[in-house]
C-alpha cells in the first residue's frame, strides 16, 4: 500500500492505493501518530484506488477508528470499489465508520 496526503484547512484526505493487508500496519501507525499531533479535525480515507483489502485490513480500520475517537478526529471512508466495497458491505463496517459509497 502507498498513499498521498491532501490537507485542506483541518481536513485531511488520505488517498490510499494498492492493497490494505497486514503489511499496511506500519503505514497506518504513521497515519495515526500524526493525528495525535493535533491540527487535524477531520480525516477521510479515499479507498477508490484500493484494489484489495483482507480481514487484517479491516482490523486496521477498526484500529484507526478507535484512534480517531481518542484523538478527537472525525474519521470516515469514501468510494470503496470492487472487492473492498463488497467486504465493507458484508461486514457492515459502514455502520461503525461512516462511509460514502
Amino acid at each position, binding site marked *: 500500500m502507498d498513499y498521498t496526503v491532501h490537507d485542506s484547512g483541518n481536513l485531511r484526505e488520505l488517498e490510499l492505493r494498492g492493497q490494505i493487508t*497486514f503489511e499496511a500496519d506500519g503505514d497506518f501507525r504513521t497515519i495515526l501518530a500524526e493525528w495525535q499531533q493535533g491540527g487535524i479535525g477531520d480525516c477521510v480515507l479515499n479507498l477508490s484506488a484500493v484494489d*484489495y483489502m*483482507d*480481514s*487484517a485490513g*479491516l*482490523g*486496521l480500520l*477498526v*484500529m484507526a477508528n*478507535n484512534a480517531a475517537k481518542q484523538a478527537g478526529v472525525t474519521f470516515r471512508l469514501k468510494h470503496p470499489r470492487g*472487492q473492498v466495497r463488497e467486504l465493507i*458491505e*458484508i*461486514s*457492515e*463496517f459502514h*455502520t*461503525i465508520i461512516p462511509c460514502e459509497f
Partner: protein
Amino acid sequence: MSGSPRVVIGHPRPSAAGPLRDVLGRLGIRHVTVVDRDGLAGAAAEAPHLLLLHAGLPGFGPGLLAGLRAEAHLCDVPILVLGRFAGSHHRRALMQAGASDLLARPLTLAELSARLSVHLENRRLDRSLQEVILSLRTYHHGAMQRMALAREMQLGLLPDATACRLLESRYGITLDSHFESSSELGGDLWGARPLDDQRFGLFLCDFTGHGVAAALNTFRLHALLARTDLPADDPAETLAALNALLVGLLPEAQFAAMIYAVVDVGADRLVYATAGAPRPLIRHADSRLEVGPSCGLPLGVASGARYRNHCLDFPSGSTLLLFSDALYEARGWDGEMFGYGGVTDLVRCLGDGAPDRPLDRLLDRYFTTMPRLLADDLTLVWISRTGRSPSGPD
C-alpha cells in the same frame, strides 16, 4: 567452545619446539602438547583445536595427512604444516591430502604468530557457528514437535468422521469438508451439531489472520460454542451472544467472520445469519445456483452488534456450500482474484453426476488455476440433501 584451545605440535625433535610453544603462549594458548611421530596418533585422538605438523616428522607426507583427515574427530580441525616444500606439485599434493595451510620456511616468528592466530580464530568462529546451528536445530525440532501436537489438537476441534456419518444418517444428507491451513495452524473452524430430529446447527468461522494467534482464537470459540445457554436454534441470536462474549476476549483489530446456519430438513429450508462471512451458495435440484445475502459486523468488533436471519429454500436434491474467504479472494497465476464468479463456475463444472463427496474433485480443478501455496486458511463444507428419508428418532 569451552576452555582454552588445545594445540598439538608434531615435531621430529620435541625438545627443539620451544620457539613454537612460545609463539602459541603469546597467543594465549595454554594447552600445548608436543609429540614426536610415535606420540602423534595418541595426542591427535584427544581432538585438538589445531594440529601443527613439522614436515621433518619421519614418514611425513600426503599419506600421513590423509590418514589424520580420515579420523572423524579431525575432519574439520585446522592442520598446518611447517617446513620446506620442494615445489608446487608437492604443495598441491599436501593440500589435497588435507593440509589446511602450508607455513613455508624461512618464516619469521611474527608471521608464524599471525598465521596461527588466523587459523585459531577461524576455528573458534566455526565452532561457535556450529554450536549456534545445533542450538537452532534443537529449537526447530522441538518447535516442530510442539506445533505438530498443537495441530493434532486443532484438528480434534473439527467434527470427526463418526460425527459426520451420524449427521448424514440422521438428516438424510451427505457431508463433505476440507480444512487446510496456510501454515501449521490456522484460524478457521467449522462444526455441526444436532438440534432435534429435523434440524441441525452448522457454522464456519474464520478469525483475522492465520497462524498461532488465529488458532488460539479458534480454541476460544470452540469453548464458547460448547456453552449450553446459547440460543443455538436461532442463528442471529447465536451470533449476537457469541459477539457479546468475544468483544471482551479478542484484542483490538482481531475478530471473526462467521456464518451460523440451521438446516431444517422438515421445513426444507436453511436459516442463517452472517457476521462478515462469505455468502453461502446453494445449488438447486435443477442446477440453478443461488448466492445468498450476507451482512453483519464480524464478531468481536463492537458490543451490542445485531444480526439478521436470512431464509433460503433447501429442499431435497439441493446442495449447500459454505467456504472461507480464502476460496474466492485467492489470486490465480494471472493475478486476478478468483471471486464468487469463480466459485459458482467451479460448482457448475461438477455437473449433475457429481459424487456424494465432491470437494476433492472441486479443489483439484481449483488448484489448476490457483497457486497451491495458500496465503490464507481454506475451509469448505459441502452438504447435499440426498432425498433419502432421514432415519428419524431411534
